[in-house]
């Protein structure tokens, strides 16, 4: 059973509307009296239902770009639009709302709460939505089933393998039924077998209509994508 996502289940993503539109995005940081330019004028469109990977060397700005797309950070200049929402100029409350409802995030280190069970970790992702407890329980069960961990719902992260923990993290991200799933090196801490499991899971979600943007330096992951982008010295190009 797959969860429904707002995006159309269309194989031809090129025909769908852009979910993300970035224009001349620049992001600079101050670090020890030095100005670091992580993004140097990025122009990019990503359409609904696409599976996009972003590759590049360490320090090239990949995570910064992902955080921009995930409404975790604002550009120093330029425009970042998620649908009709201008992420560059939205209020903090609006950005929080976007993170709660529109965007699912998966991290390299899983970032699960170690004292909570798998069920409770997934439930944490639904906390901001204000759903009834029955609806929340239903979605959690559905999400864990979708990632194949229905029988591990009451296990703590420490009792799960790396691959299983990442599945729980994915379940937490998709339980809210987001428009887009952003993953920052989701297979970075996993062995080959677990990496393939996670990739299959992500591909399955994409087939169901979920827009997928994955930062990776693993070419095996990148090969599975519809579009491959390379971010180097703050600039993006298609590969």
């Amino acid at each position: 059973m797959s969860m429904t996502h707002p995006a159309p289940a269309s194989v031809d993503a090129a025909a769908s509307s852009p979910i993300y539109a970035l224009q001349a995005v620049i992001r600079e940081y101050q670090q020890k009296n030095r100005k670091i330019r992580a993004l140097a004028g990025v122009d990019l469109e990503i359409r609904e239902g696409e599976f996009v990977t972003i590759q590049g060397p360490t320090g090239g700005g990949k995570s910064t770009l992902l955080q921009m797309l995930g409404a975790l950070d604002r550009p120093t200049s330029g425009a970042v639009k998620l649908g009709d929402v201008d992420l560059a100029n939205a209020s903090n409350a609006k950005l929080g709302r976007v993170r709660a409802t529109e965007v699912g995030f998966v991290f390299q280190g899983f970032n699960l709460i170690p004292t909570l069970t798998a069920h409770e970790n997934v439930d944490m992702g639904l906390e901001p939505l204000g759903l009834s407890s029955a609806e929340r329980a239903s979605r959690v069960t559905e999400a864990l089933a979708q990632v194949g961990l229905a029988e591990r719902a009451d296990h703590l992260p420490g009792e799960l393998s790396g691959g299983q923990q990442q599945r729980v993290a994915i379940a937490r991200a998709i339980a809210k039924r987001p428009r887009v799933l952003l993953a920052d090196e989701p297979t970075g801490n996993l062995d080959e077998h677990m990496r393939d499991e996670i990739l299959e899971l992500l591909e399955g979600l994409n087939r169901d209509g979920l827009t997928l943007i994955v930062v990776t330096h693993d070419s095996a992951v990148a090969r599975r994508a519809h579009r491959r982008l390379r971010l180097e010295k703050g600039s993006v190009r298609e590969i």
Partner: protein
Amino acid sequence: MYWTYLRRELAGRKKQTIIVAVGLAVAIALVIVVNSLSAGVRDAQAQALESVYGVGTDLTVTGAAAEPGEGGGQRFEFDSEAGETTDGTTSVSQSRLTADFMRGTLDAATVENVASLDGVAAASGALSLTNITFSGEMPDRSQMQQGGQGEAGGEPPSGGPDGAGGSAFDLNSFTVLGIDPDDTAVGPLSAVEVSEGRALTADDAGELVAVVDATYASTNEIALGDTIDVGGSNVEVVGIITSTSSDADTAANVYIPLDVAQSLAGLDDVVSTVYVQATSADQIEAVQAEIEGSVADVTVSSQSDLASTVSSSLSSASSLITNLGTWLSVLVLAVALALAVLFTISGVTRRTREFGTLKAIGWSNGRVVGQVAGESVIQGLIGGAIGLAVGLAGIGIINLITPTISSTSSTTGQGGPGQGGGPMGGGFGGMAQQTATEVVLHAPVTLWVVAAAVGIAIAGGLIAGAFGGWRAARLSPAEALRSVG
């Protein structure tokens, strides 16, 4: 989810939770015990005052201090036929009833004058006296005068308690209070109850009757119906009285009717102290001023002035608890709060990735801050509960041990130089008389102390939570996630 997350976090960080809770617990227990002891010492001081000055006495009026050289001078005088002689030894004994020579007396009409003033609810008067009994043995003086004993070339001295012509003398005293049995609303009689026999009544005016303090009676083996020597007269004991406070004695050893006291002491219609009760606490200062303005040559003392007469370990205990105890409580509380704040901030810093992740998945600042604050408040409440239990246990132990503290209030009595023939010359100076009271120290448990403990616990948690929450609120999710790679 809120309580599940909170519970799991506190359980997962047991060491930190315990340190913060124990720190707060120690502080709160100390605050409870110190406050309770302070209240206990205040109660003890009030008891000590009550036993001397009675219940409800707001002011006392006494005569002005005597000038040096004034007053006093009553002497024990024995004529040549005084005493009983047996086997060459003469035994003498004499009792005198004297007022405090250091302070003048007041006309008894002062009581009514004071009672008629505005703001005075009640007034009573009493005459404080000291009965001093001089007794002893000496060689038969008639033998010395006839046979030239002791003179050069005469027979060797004999007689006396040592059989060799020596003498031995004793000086004993007890306090006597002349009272008006009709005036019991305020003053020493308001704090006593009859344990045997009866109290003095108006019908006892002019009669040689007395009621005796139970502790004095027990110590001196005085029973109901016995007669005692008061000022050289035999007075019948018609009642034994005790203080209404089980932990204190009454104001004097013996109580006799006021007119009898005046007569036996050779005084006019006077009193030594007027006890005054004001209509309300607000009126005390005004009444004090009014008395000082309308009655000449008097000293008017308020409760705090009276308290200063209660000396010794009671006021030392009060100082120790109030000063050292309070400062120690404040210091320990400050340290506990600092610990709680530091641990909370440290915990938030350590959970940077966790809070960054929560914000990344949509948790608002308020939600994250609320979680941090909630954890701190619960830690505070745990500390408060432990502190309350330890504090109450400490109070229980104090009340189980029931330490006693002695308190004394000083008055001066009078003796006088002896006179008469023979070698018994010279004088005896005035003696200080002290009313000693043993007071049992209790540590009362009051509702406000319990409420204060809970309040401190919650406040401690809120303060720590505020600092931690502020730290968590400042966390940018992007920076938080960047900082841990």
